[in-house]
Every structure is written in C-alpha cells, then in structure tokens.
C-alpha cells in the first residue's frame, strides 16, 4: 500500500504552484504539508483526491495511476476539506449515517453512537446540525474518521475551529490511525505527536521562493 507522487506539476492561471514534486507515502506514515498561504497546499491535496487534475506528472496508488482505478482508490480514501460536508437540515446522526452510507458502509447505531460519544457530541445526536456551533459542526465532520475504514486520510486544516480538548482528541485519532497501519497527509500548523510510525515533512514554500527569485 503506497501513495506515490511523481514529478507533479500544477499551474493555476499563469502561476506555477509547484513543479517536479515527488514523494512517497507508505503505511504507518504521517505527512505534514507545510507552506505559506497560497503556496498550493489545498491544490495538492485536491489533486491527490482526483478532484483537481494535475497538469503534469503521476499520482500512483499501489503503482497504478489513481484516475485509472476510480472506485478502488476512492474506497481507500477519506478527504476532509475546508467544507464540512454535512447538511444543515439533517440531524447529527442522520448526517453521520448518510455520509457513511455514501462511502459504501452500513454502520450500526451502536457504532454511530460510539463515534459521537468519542468525538464529544453525546446527547446531540438528534440536534439539527444547523443549531450547532462552528466547532461542533467540525466535530460532526471529524466523526467520519472514527467510522471510516479508509486507509488514506487526506485532511485539509483539520484543526480549524476546534477547541483545545478537541485538538488533543484529533491528535490521538490521527496517531491511532497511523499506528494501525494507516497513512495520513495533512496541512496544519499544529504538531501531531505520534506514538509510533514516521513523520514526513514536505514544504511547498521553498519552491515558490525559488520561483520568485528567478
């Protein structure tokens, strides 16, 4: 199980976000993506998910380009972007059940309740998400991490809007996932301490600095 990026290049308009970007991510590894605002972190993450088509280069999952394996790759992938991907008109538990259902999973009520309990939304299950605070909505989105069986987590600024307790909780969840043979790639300014596994770092800023000086 490997995610391999080869000579990736992305151009937005006439601005080169990154070029010749190569890295490899394996099980039990966490990759922290660093870079200043506008350096292309989100674009890179969206490219990894296949939401944004790269201009050059290849993204390989187990040696096969991701656009050639469609559903097989997407089954292993969990993406959490800036948007929470939850419906304001649905209750917390409905959101959770539907999101899992769309991902092809059929969790039991116990599994859902356990996830809500862990994420700190116990007794909120029948609240419409429109009545929750920003941080609580983020927690609903994060509860997906506890239910999903995906191996590769792609998280874009997962710590935004969370309070201190939730940040610690999320750090533990991520560390557990890496522990259990998963892989995580995330953008954040927060450190994630791991109990085992390896942290990789990738900085996009350096490249854009080079670009500016040219």
């Amino acid at each position: 199980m490997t995610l391999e990026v080869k000579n990736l290049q992305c151009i937005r308009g006439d601005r080169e976000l990154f070029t010749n970007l190569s890295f490899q991510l394996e099980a039990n590894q966490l990759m922290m993506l660093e870079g200043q605002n506008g350096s292309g972190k989100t674009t890179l993450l969206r490219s990894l998910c296949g939401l944004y088509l790269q201009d050059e280069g290849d993204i390989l999952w187990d040696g096969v380009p991701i656009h050639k394996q469609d559903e097989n790759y997407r089954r292993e992938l969990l993406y959490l972007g800036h948007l929470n991907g939850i419906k304001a008109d649905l209750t917390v538990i409905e959101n959770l059940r539907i999101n899992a259902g769309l991902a092809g999973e059929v969790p039991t009520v116990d599994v859902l309740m356990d996830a809500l309990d862990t994420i700190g939304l116990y007794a909120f299950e029948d609240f419409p998400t429109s009545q929750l605070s920003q941080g609580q909505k983020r927690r609903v989105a994060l509860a997906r991490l506890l239910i999903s069986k995906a191996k590769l987590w792609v998280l874009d600024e997962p710590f935004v809007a969370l309070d201190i307790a939730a940040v610690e909780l999320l750090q533990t969840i991520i560390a557990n996932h890496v522990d259990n043979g998963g892989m995580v790639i995330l953008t954040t300014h927060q450190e994630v301490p791991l109990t085992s596994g390896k942290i990789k770092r990738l900085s996009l800023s350096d490249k854009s600095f080079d670009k500016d000086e040219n």
Partner: protein
Amino acid sequence: MFNAFWVLLKRDLLLALRRRSEVFTVLFFFLIVISLFPLGVGSEDATLKKIAPGVVWIAALLASTLALDRLFANDYLDGTLEQLILAPQSLSIMVFAKMLAHWLLTGLPLVLIAPLVGLFYHLPTATIGVMMLVLLLGTPVLSMIGAIAAALTLGLRGGGVLVSLLVLPLYIPILVYGSGAISTSMVEGLSIQPYILLLSAFMLLALIFSPWATASALKISLE
C-alpha cells in the same frame, strides 16, 4: 452499488420533507401561471381548449427551471458534493439518484395536479388522461436535461438565470411534441401514438446520456 443510490435518494427526499416550502413553491408557481391565462386571454370554452396544451407545457417548463438551480447548488456550498464525487461509487448513478429525487419533488406533483388544470380549461376526460401521460413522459426529460445545465453553471454568479437561458431552448422538442399530443387527442380520429413514441424516445435518450454528461460537468465545475 445501489446502496449509495438509495441512501442519496432518501437523503434528498428527507431534505425536501424538512423544507416543504421549496416543493410547494414550484407547484403553486405552476398553478398560478396556469390560472393567469384564462384571465388574460378570455374564458370562452373554445379559446381555453385551444390554448390549454401550450399553456400547460409552458407552465411546466418554467416551473421545472425554477427548481433547477437548487439541484446541486446546496450540495456544492456545504461540501457534500465533493464528498459525493469522492464516494467509491459511480458518480453517474449518484447523479441519477439526484435527478430522480428532483423529478419526484418537482415533476411528479405537476403530473398529479394535471386533472385540476383540465377542470380549469374544460378539457374532456380522455384529454386529461393524455395530458397526464405526456407529462409523465416529458417531465423526467426536463429534469434530466436541466441537471446537465445546472451542473455546468454550478458556482457561477447569476447561475440561476443562466440555467434558464441554457435549458429553455433545449426544452423545445418536449414542448412541441408534448402539447401536440394533447391537441391531437381533442381531434376525432387522429392517433397520438407518434407523439407518445417520440416522447418515450426522448426519455430513453436522456436516461442514457444525461447522468453521464451531468457527472462529467460536475467534475469540471468542481475543479
């Protein structure tokens, strides 16, 4: 594979149930447009019978465009659309679930309210039956063609008006054959079969191509 289809279909119906007003606006819009014509054109029996087929279809076209910009816009704004695209299912099937939900909420009510329209316009019972049948065949095509345009204009400013400009010309064949069938049914001795066959052909064509076209358009809009 069909599990996600049902989940999404049920989700969209549940969302509509939580926001019933959106379903009723389309239905009342249809009824109001229909009832404005007799007031403007005059309420003689012969005139009403003559304009009824066209009026019903034009009202149906307008009502269905009214609901189009909501088809994907809400999902786009709250991020559920990108999750749909990333779900390990064929996007075309998911898109088809959304189209079906859209038709059940905006097309089917028009079919069911058609007898009332028939009463407004003094149509014979047989004609009301034909009207329901052609609406049943035609309104799904409106939803399916509309979905392509809604996907293409996703995230654009003023997308709502643009959708109408894009789809109304594409609705013309449905308008022509749909109202043609209703008019023909009021004339003794003429068969409506060709109209029905053509409308069915349109529906099959839309069934095959529109989910695929809409899925491609969505992927482009989300880049």
